[in-house]
């Protein structure tokens, strides 16, 4: 690990002022890095993938302290319409929060599927959304791939068993965040020091902008809160689930994951939200499939149609074709679970 200076701001103002205002080149923002739980940043620094001169530790920032916060009374969750989750909330706190478990099963399930108990205790929701790709080319210090400012995505013609089947190009990473998939389904909002962003606007495809980035955060922009819209909660009739498929159940990143939320009118689906994880460079929302589901009763035929529709645009690389039937099966499993 390269030596660095660690700053310990106590206010968000100080934290933001210690960050660079502009991104002068794709990697300039790397010179100063934000530390939350450190579960991704520290390994990146140890592997020399990140070599910041300055690390800004957010743990002392007052505005970010606390865990899952609801500014209203318990009864007013629905009234205020929002559950606020502080950016430094640990994954473990998120997974064990009773309110969230009740309202958003999809989020609790995705939180408890992450890594190991030790990592969940340390890792934060903000950090989880901002984590860097796990692609083994990117993680190898000797490669200078597209994600590291080079000009080639080695996975495209390489060992791409774990890479993207949807939304790929010019980089074929898959976004590693489980929470992102669940939060996109919930329609969460990310509140930063500069703006409020719908989660669908937070992540960015490599084809849309600078391929060294996975999200639209500016170098001096910090996530403060994640807001959940309770009109999509269980109290409003939504049922939800998260199914994560891993090679190794004990702890692993998703090979494919499905976040599904459904609202029923009798046995017919009245509203649907479907997002996929582990298959695209961003959490992948399947809007046409959502439309297809509405008005239908869950049966084998619908499961098959939904899978077909969701994966219609999939373009497998040489070694990841299996993700297509796998993801179709996971969608079917999720639908049957909520039926």
């Amino acid at each position, binding site marked *: *690990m390269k030596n660095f200076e660690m700053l310990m701001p106590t206010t968000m103002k100080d934290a933001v002022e210690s960050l660079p205002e502009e991104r002068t080149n794709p990697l300039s923002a790397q010179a100063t890095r934000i530390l939350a739980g450190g579960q991704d940043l520290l390994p990146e620094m140890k592997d*020399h993938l990140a070599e910041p001169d300055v690390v800004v530790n957010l743990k002392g920032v007052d505005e970010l302290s606390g865990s899952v916060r609801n500014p209203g009374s318990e009864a007013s969750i629905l009234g205020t319409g929002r559950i606020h989750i502080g950016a430094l909330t640990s994954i473990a706190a998120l997974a064990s929060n009773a309110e969230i478990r009740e309202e958003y099963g999809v989020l609790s399930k995705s939180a408890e599927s992450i890594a190991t108990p030790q990592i969940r205790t340390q890792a934060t929701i903000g950090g989880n959304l901002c984590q860097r790709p*796990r692609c*083994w*080319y990117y*993680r*190898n210090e*000797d*490669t200078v791939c597209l994600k590291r400012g080079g000009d080639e995505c*080695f996975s495209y*013609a*390489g*060992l791409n*068993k774990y890479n993207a089947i949807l939304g790929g190009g010019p980089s074929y990473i898959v976004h590693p965040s489980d929470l992102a998939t669940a939060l996109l389904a919930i329609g969460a909002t990310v509140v930063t020091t500069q703006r409020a962003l719908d989660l669908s606007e937070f992540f960015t495809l490599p084809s849309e902008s600078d391929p060294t980035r996975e999200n639209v955060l500016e170098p001096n922009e910090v996530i403060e809160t994640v807001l959940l819209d309770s009109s999509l909660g269980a109290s409003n009739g939504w049922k939800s689930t998260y199914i994560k*498929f891993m*090679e*190794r*159940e*004990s*702890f*692993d990143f998703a*090979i494919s994951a499905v976040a599904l939320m459904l609202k029923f009118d009798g046995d017919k689906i009245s509203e649907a939200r479907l997002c996929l994880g582990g298959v695209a460079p961003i959490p992948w929302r399947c809007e046409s499939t959502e439309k297809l589901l509405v008005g239908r009763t869950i049966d084998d035929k619908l499961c098959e149609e939904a899978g077909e529709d969701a994966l219609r645009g999939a373009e497998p690389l040489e*070694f*990841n*074709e*299996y993700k297509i*039937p*796998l993801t179709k*099966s*996971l969608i*079917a*499993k999720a639908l049957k679970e909520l039926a």
Partner: protein
Amino acid sequence: MSPNPIAQPEWKKRADMKVLNTDLRRVDGEAKATGRAVYSHDVRLPNMLYAKFLRCPHPAAKVVDLDLGPVSAVSGAIHALAIESEETSFLGQPVAAVAAESLEAAEDAIRAIRVEYETSGWAVTEEQGLDPATPSIGRRGNSFVDRETGDLDEASAAVASADVMVESTYTVPVQHHCCLETHGLVVDFDGKRAKVWASTQHVTGVSQQVAGELSISTSDVEVITDYMGGGFGAKFGIGIEGQTACRFAKELKRPIHLMLDRADEFLFSGNRSGGRQILKAGANMDGRIVGMTAEIWRHGGIARGSNPGQPYIYSVESSHMQMGSVHTNTDANRAMRAPGHPQASFAIEGIVDELAYALGMDLLDFRMRNLEDPVYHRQLDRVAKEVGWYEHGYRAEPNRSRGGKNVGIGFGISVWGGGGRPVCVTSVRIDPDGSVTASTGSQDLGTGTRTYVGAIAAEEFGLKASQVIGRVGHSAYGPANGSGGSTTVASLAPAVKDAAHKAREQFAERLASWLECSAEQVRFEGGEVYSTAEPGKRLSWAEACSILGSRPIEASGEFQGHLQTQGVHGAQAAMVEVDTQTGALKVLKMVGIQDCGLPLNRLAIRSQINGGMIEALGYALFEERVIEPWLGYALSANFNDYKLPGCKEMPELVAIIDDDDDRQQVIGMAEPTIIPGHSAIANAVHNACGVRVYDLPLTPDKILMGLTKKA
């Protein structure tokens, strides 16, 4: 030699044993679990320097320029050495090393070194190794055949004329040892004498090698391996790390701490060789395998690789085997728990299953028809009962139903030697204060050596296991074996028994006059000493020892061939569940039975069986060294991408000691327990869903694509 020995040492009858052949908790378990145990990694000496290697990032390269100069500008860096300044031949080969005041400074210093490489051609796959354009890797060329048995024409004709014939290619990847403690040592050399803390499977060998490196005599080298975090065959010699630590120690006259990091461990400290096996086999309707041809290619990197050959344990009327190696620019394989055997097992157990299915025969029945040794029949029957085979619905054909989760069962068998060698000299000492120590230079790899060394003496003196201190892993405790080939227990236990036996005889002589009887009449039982002439008159152990006055008893023991033997079998069964929609594989249950002659510590033996099954589980499910074939990057040199099973992967494990083996001699049994588990799992996967995965590991992508094709 004790004077006038009364009798040869003999193991007690099993029924008479109070300590041995029981469940003994390991005496050092608490120290290990609480972190009090000091491993070589943990040693910190005043004035100590930390050393580290720079690895070559290319599979093979010419070192055009190696500039160690920049190291001097790194704060805390003391010295740098060139290790290889001409040409590297495998990915990750060390080219330079540094010593520094801290590990952090050593890391910075390594990164400061400037190397200019020139790469031409290299090979990291078998295909590349066979490409004539690839520069020569080994002295014998990049591929060669070095073993051939049987008559090809005869075997081929036998296969062709059989009632059913199958032909398949089985491949296995390179597996890593994954010792929790990496390789390395701490060398403290004052110019005349050296003290070394080594993570090694061979204390005696390390003292000889370090003496050679430092140009001093072996008697001036003290080697300590109080605790070590695993070896599995990779830690015999001192290696490049030992040589380099000695170079630094000699030049700098300061203690050197050189333990490899995890990437080093993955890239240049050995592995289980991979390989490809093409098997053709034929069987007749009566269930006999009548012919087999096997073409075996071992993938041992710059080394040869290992495989014991086919048809392994099975009887085949006419067989032919051709075995060769293909070199690549990757790390040399080393011994790894039952070298070669798991590889051979995977192919033969697969083809045996394929033949049975082709004949529509019960898989277990078919195995037995082709195994002559009745021990295998007994053991297979036992694991079959335990795993639920006789109630299983798919014994002669796989379950081909789709849509749900299917359960399948598979089998595999093993074989091993496990006999001892005359190398260990041990000692047992009884002090007047009642304390007893049994000492050996042999190391405890984590197998429980320390526990049984004490227990053997405790049994001899009628004491509890906790009343004897077992001391291991120190060159001063006498010459000892290298722990390889499961030879430790059979080499060491007879020597400890011999020393304890002699100590008991000496003690009896000393006590005879006190007890007013002959030495032959003295008995040591239940923590007491008495004469058979007057059993009512008893001394406590402490009282008896106090009679020794100022003259403790000390006896030295040597190998006693009749106390050990060799030759063990083993059978395992696995029950798995395959999700036919996703390809997810869950191993539900593994059953392993192992014969081992006279069991010394039943708990440790069952733990070995469990450990073997778990290591095979990893080989089955995940473990695979991945080197990028087109760019030559090491993609799996970490524990994120090189996956080991965790707690959620653990099946129900049933470890059975085969007590029908009534041999009254000890035999090593650690290695055979790893041989058949992955084969049983692979066969169970096929039994569950009709998909045979021919190349390990059995990852869900392969199973799912197989299911997609079969649908």
